[in-house]
């Protein structure tokens, strides 16, 4: 791949597909933010940690909430504190700099070493949020009018952005990103992921559990499909509970770990009783 020295190839605690590490390396060498989407539990957030770990950089996490404003990532001017100080005369309020606090983005610009900046769940914020960051992410600098200062990144941070697709992101923002969708791991990848978490798992148990797990995921009507983390928990439960492998498929023990919605449990029960209704657009029942 890239001739760059900083080629990301995954880290010990995190299994990465070639596709994904490719995308990471593309983003790093093109100096563009990497936008990661994927089902919950496919390790979007973990990716940034793994990149930081393997490239030996600091990780700065900016968690986005519904109330987060783009400005907060740059800096916050603590006017209230300044007001207090001026009223009670505790300190010199003429120095505005004291009341400017850098946000996570500002922090990552100011770092002396190159860092990994994770902007987690960007879709939680307001629709306009990504647009407000366009300039800053492009130029890696911003201006603080209060102090007439411009903060410019010493080392362009590696920016990883995750999204759960709660909101569509604006096109202008998307154009500037490298995009990667983390597909749900196939059984082979899943096995290697599991072996990271449960290195000493009995072969037979694993096989049975995986088969059941993918069977559940393939039932189309299940709304909240079990994800990797649920499978890992479930395996833990199976091991602790001392369930014999032969029983897994028949009895579906600790099902609550995998399926968390009542409706989904009902769907599964229906399925098991063979009540699945075939839906066919051509059959136009005219009964009422």
């Amino acid at each position, binding site marked *: *791949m890239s001739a760059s020295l900083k080629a990301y190839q995954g880290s010990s605690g995190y299994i990465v597909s070639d596709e994904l590490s490719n995308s990471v390396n593309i983003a790093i060498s093109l100096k563009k933010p990497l936008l990661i989407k994927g089902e919950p539990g496919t390790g979007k957030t973990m990716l940034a940690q793994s990149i930081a770990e393997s490239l030996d950089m600091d990780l700065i996490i900016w968690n986005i909430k519904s109330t987060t404003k783009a400005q907060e990532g740059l800096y916050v001017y603590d006017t209230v504190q300044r007001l207090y100080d001026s009223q009670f005369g505790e300190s010199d309020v003429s120095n505005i700099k004291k009341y400017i606090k850098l946000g996570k983005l500002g922090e990552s610009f100011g770092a002396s070493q190159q860092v990994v900046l994770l902007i987690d769940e960007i879709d939680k914020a307001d629709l306009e949020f990504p647009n407000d960051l366009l300039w800053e992410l492009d130029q890696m600098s911003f201006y603080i009018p209060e102090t007439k200062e411009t903060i410019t990144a010493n080392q362009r941070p590696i920016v990883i952005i995750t999204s759960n697709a709660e909101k569509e992101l604006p096109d202008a923002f*998307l154009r500037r990103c490298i995009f990667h969708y983390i597909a749900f791991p196939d059984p082979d990848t899943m096995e290697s992921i599991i072996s990271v978490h449960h290195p000493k798992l009995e072969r037979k148990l694993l096989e049975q559990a995986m088969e059941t797990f993918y069977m559940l995921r393939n039932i189309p009507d299940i709304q909240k499909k079990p994800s990797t983390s649920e499978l890992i928990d479930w395996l833990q439960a199976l091991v602790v509970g001392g369930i014999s492998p032969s029983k897994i498929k028949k009895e579906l023990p600790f099902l609550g770990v995998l399926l968390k919605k009542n409706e989904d449990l009902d769907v599964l029960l229906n399925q098991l009783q063979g009540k699945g209704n075939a839906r066919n657009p051509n059959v136009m029942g005219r009964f009422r």
Partner: protein
Amino acid sequence: MFTNFFYTLKNYGMPVSLNEWQSLLEALEAGLAGSSLIGFYYLGRAMLVKTEAHYDRFDMAFSSFFKDIETPEGLPEKIWEWLNKEMPEVEVTEEMRRNHQQLDLDELKRMLEERLKEQTEEHHGGNRWVGTGGTSPFGHSGYHPGGIRIGGESRNLSAVKVAGMRRFQEFRTDETLGVRQFQMALRKLRQFTTRLDGARTELDLDATIDKTCDNAGRLELVWNRPRENAIKVLLLMDSGGSMISYSRLCNQLFTAVNRTAHFKDLKVFYFHNCLYDWMFHDTHCSLNDYTPTDYILNHLSSDYRVIIVGDASMALYELMRPGGIIDWELYNQKPGIEWLSMLRRKFEYSVWLNPIPRKYWSWMDGSYTIKKIAEIFPMEELTVDGLDRAIKSLKSRKAISVG
């Protein structure tokens, strides 16, 4: 050749802009594709595709554009050509030479041949191997550990084959998806107003603090007008027998509409197959519980957005004839089609969502009534994409001639 690929993508409905194309070319120049088709596939996908919903379109465009570049077992001569052509151009650094002293071109060819044999036997698509092997990486960095790793385990599929697998088909937004996606689509149905005549009732905290600070601490309050969504929605749902097959889909839409709290007003009514004098309050559609359609037509303001959900396929008389209603105990003076036209005339912002996939509209047994109704209402299929388009048409008046 690459410029054509750009247009191929456009033809497949990918919203590619010149900006992204430009950066892709830069990335190619920087050697990020590793001179292999699979590398180009991943690079192109990462740079040009911005949502998993378009992965499938990219895959289709890619496989149609590159379909002539076949897997190695089909075209060995070509590979030798590549190999011979590429090798002399390679700049080999001291370090590389040290690493691969013992591998000359013949050696490489031999090993590649071995590989190709394995490939044919296993019937795996092997462009991977040729991608990394036949073109420069094989020569460039030879058996560089990185090269081997990429070429190794389970990744031995050609780019065209990877694209041809269309693994991301299920993410297409024109496929039906869940409640959440419907909600996302419905969110777009909004029209914020900060009515100019409204009272300024909301304390603007940030502005207040700013102003107060500007005043060096003397409190100054700043008030704002609240922003409100002005959209009102009238949802009409078919609960007839033929809709049972789509009940889950309709439920999802219904849940999504209900959960979307931002409408100024939401009214939901039901009907059987076609709309007549009555708008029923529940799915049973009995005469115990209804609002006369006349009343709705006269009392609701015409800026209600009307969403009708139904399969629009019924017997011809149900739509066209007086008394055509399917319920025995009821009789309609005006034919259903007239009611629908009246509704459409009153509510200019209206749309019909049909759970039957569009491809069946023209030939299944309700095709005639579907056609008739689609002449009155803009009709979209009940998928996330369809709902998206429907909502767009709900935002603007669309002239449809109503007889």
